[in-house]
């Protein structure tokens, strides 16, 4: 309880104060970070002492709002705090008081999503997140940003209406909103009303969470907005939808649903990323692709699978934000990489890109290796293995394509253009793998470092590179279709996705 309150109040105060006294905006934000990280530290200590905790806000017992502290909460909250620190360093006092206010409000909402364990509280926090995100997307007032923001606004509002309808149905059957109580009340209930209600809620969360068919707003919004905002949105804001899905999975056994969704999301995202030729677009599609892994993790249904998903959630946030910031610090986010000889990047950006790419390709001992290997252990269906292999291959291909253009072909700028915050972030991301190693303990990691594992994970990028050498020209001629990403079609595909969800839930 203290952990949540410390974070939320310090972020809100930081936001309001930076509006009122905009001269000290940067210091208020630093104080906000300090408050949130002490809140996180408090929660970590609590978790170490007594394991997962569920407590009611305001000690109202059954009547209040529940919050939960478990691995997912802590990993996500640490992502928020980490990204807060590095984006703050990256900003270094640039931007106005209003920007810092919105920035802190975004952090407030995402931080409180981490703790939410009540279906309606989840709705409110996620809506809060998306409203702030929309303002941040359109902050520079470029017309394409405004359009991307408006698209996100309309689709997400529609989606949250679906969530609310689903919530109504679930509440009527279950009678509670607190997830713990509701899970007990719904035990053994497999009625149609419940299935459909939960399906509606998942559809609503999927729109926020970057799942293919649902989140067609994502590529535009994440690639058109300014760099810090892209990093924050891709890194942590879309994760709040996924946190929602993790929480919902306490209520019901999803069966194959999330696996199917994860497979489709992962493969389609990678395919579109491969076809794109602007770094920020590639990274935005890559976010969709990486969400696939998280869904696969949740879809396994085991607690270790959910831990793997949460770990991936953290690591993806870190390396994706690093990639966005590296590209953005060099100012090449919107450039076409087919003419990369004309671009020039500072050394820190190249190092950041390299570390981020090694992470995203899951090369040991970089961070994603641990979450992916942990996930692979939990998967026991062969087709999921194949899907993961294909996703790994796709990831390796678009990453190598990006790296070839931005690291090898481009020029290196003189020393003065280096961005120290990107450098620091690079080091942190590089080290986060070792943190995971320590955290997971020796029993797991000995197993993970078996020779056959290593061979698989190192050979995937090699094969990807070879395929790229062979067919690279073919891919660069393609470009992702703009058709499914238009506002109307994105909304149709949302409903289509919902009907698909229901069919999978009812039949499989």
């Amino acid at each position, binding site marked *: *309880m203290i952990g949540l*309150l410390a974070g939320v*109040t310090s972020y*809100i*105060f930081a936001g*309001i104060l930076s*509006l*009122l006294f905009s001269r000290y905006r940067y210091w208020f934000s630093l104080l906000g970070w300090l408050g949130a990280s002490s809140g996180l530290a408090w929660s970590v200590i609590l978790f170490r002492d007594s394991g997962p905790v569920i407590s009611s*806000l*305001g*000690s*109202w017992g*059954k*009547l*209040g*709002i529940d919050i939960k502290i478990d691995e997912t909460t802590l990993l996500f909250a640490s992502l928020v705090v980490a990204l807060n620190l590095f984006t703050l360093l990256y900003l270094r006092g640039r931007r106005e008081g*209003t920007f810092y*206010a*919105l920035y802190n*409000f975004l952090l*407030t*909402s995402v931080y*409180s999503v981490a703790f939410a364990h009540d279906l*309606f*509280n989840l709705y*409110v*926090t996620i*809506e*809060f997140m998306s*409203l702030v995100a*929309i*303002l941040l997307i359109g*902050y520079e*007032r470029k017309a394409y940003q405004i359009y991307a923001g408006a698209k996100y606004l309309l689709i997400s509002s529609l989606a949250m209406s679906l969530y609310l*309808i689903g919530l109504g*149905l679930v509440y*009527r*059957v279950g*009678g*509670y*909103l*607190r997830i713990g*109580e509701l899970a007990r*009340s719904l035990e053994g209930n497999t*009625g*149609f*009303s*419940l299935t*459909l*209600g939960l399906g*509606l809620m998942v559809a609503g969360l999927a729109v926020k969470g970057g799942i293919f068919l649902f989140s067609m707003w994502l590529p535009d919004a994440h690639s058109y907005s300014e760099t810090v905002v892209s990093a924050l949105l891709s890194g942590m804001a879309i994760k709040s939808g996924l946190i929602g899905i993790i929480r919902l999975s306490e209520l019901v056994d999803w069966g194959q649903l999330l696996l199917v969704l994860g497979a489709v999301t992962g493969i389609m995202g990678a395919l579109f990323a491969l076809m794109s030729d602007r770094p920020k677009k590639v990274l935005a599609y890559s976010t969709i692709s990486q969400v696939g892994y998280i869904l696969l993790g949740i879809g396994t249904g085991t607690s270790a699978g959910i831990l793997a998903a949460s770990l991936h959630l953290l690591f993806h946030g870190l390396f994706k934000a690093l990639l966005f910031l590296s590209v953005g610090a060099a100012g090449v986010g919107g450039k076409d990489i087919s003419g990369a000889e004309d671009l020039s990047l500072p050394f820190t950006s190249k190092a950041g890109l390299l570390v981020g790419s090694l992470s995203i390709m899951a090369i040991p001992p970089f961070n994603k290796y641990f979450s992916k290997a942990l996930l692979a252990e939990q998967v026991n269906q062969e087709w999921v293995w194949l899907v993961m292999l294909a996703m790994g291959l796709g990831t390796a291909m678009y990453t190598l394509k990006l790296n070839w253009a931005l690291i090898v072909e481009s020029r290196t700028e003189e020393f003065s253009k280096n961005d120290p915050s990107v450098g620091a972030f690079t080091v942190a991301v590089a080290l986060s793998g070792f943190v995971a190693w320590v955290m997971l303990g020796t029993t797991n990691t000995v197993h993970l470092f078996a020779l056959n594992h290593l061979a698989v994970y190192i050979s995937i990028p090699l094969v990807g590179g070879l395929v790229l050498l062979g067919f690279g020209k073919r891919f660069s001629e393609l470009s992702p279709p703009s*058709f499914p990403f238009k506002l*109307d*079609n994105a909304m*149709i595909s949302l*409903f*289509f996705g*919902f*009907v698909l969800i*229901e069919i999978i839930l009812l039949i499989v």
Partner: protein
Amino acid sequence: MEMDNFSFSVKKTFTVIIVSLFGGLTISAVFLGRSPDTARIGRLYLERGFELENISNTVFGVYGMFRFYDTLLELMIFSTAVLGITIFSDLEPSTRTRGEQMIESHVVTASASFLYPIMAVFGLYLAFSAHLGPGGGFAAGVIGGSGILFLALSKGAEEMGRRFNEHTMKRVEYIALVFAMLAMVLGILFPKLIFEDLQGIGVIIVVNMAIGLKVFIGTWAILHFFVKHRGEV
């Protein structure tokens, strides 16, 4: 023309089919689901709510006490919307010439200047009595803020801008928000002390007033923006 080869009629049919499927599924869920009359949180709220002597409106008890955290986040959402509006408020107003007065009719002017104090009083009443009957800080703020619109109708937008200095209003608004937030923190940390030992009532009224004030100013800011940029769409 940009529809690729997906013509509009195909899109129309597809949309109608897909959305109707969604509707059909949901409707059948409405009919197939059973609502258990026992073991609902709602009953607990009613029982516990009626135990509290000061609060006869249980709905207020739910959003004003038990789930005040949600209400605070809701307030933050409203603040965000207002902040968004104020960020964009320096958009240049329309280049075309328009009449200064929105409506010149004397009847409207007279009735507006008559209605405005009534709405203000009604808003205050709602803020004071939310724990007893329907109302609450939020509706109160919006009604008071709409009263401002009537003031604008009767006195003109210029006068409205002069009477409510933007800078001061912003400060008051955020101070009210900070106040509501402090109340939340206190309410969550020491609920028994505030709501039961201190009889809660004073705190509740003050919190409602703070929310009402915040929403009132937010409403004013939004209306001011839209009056300034009226006819833009």
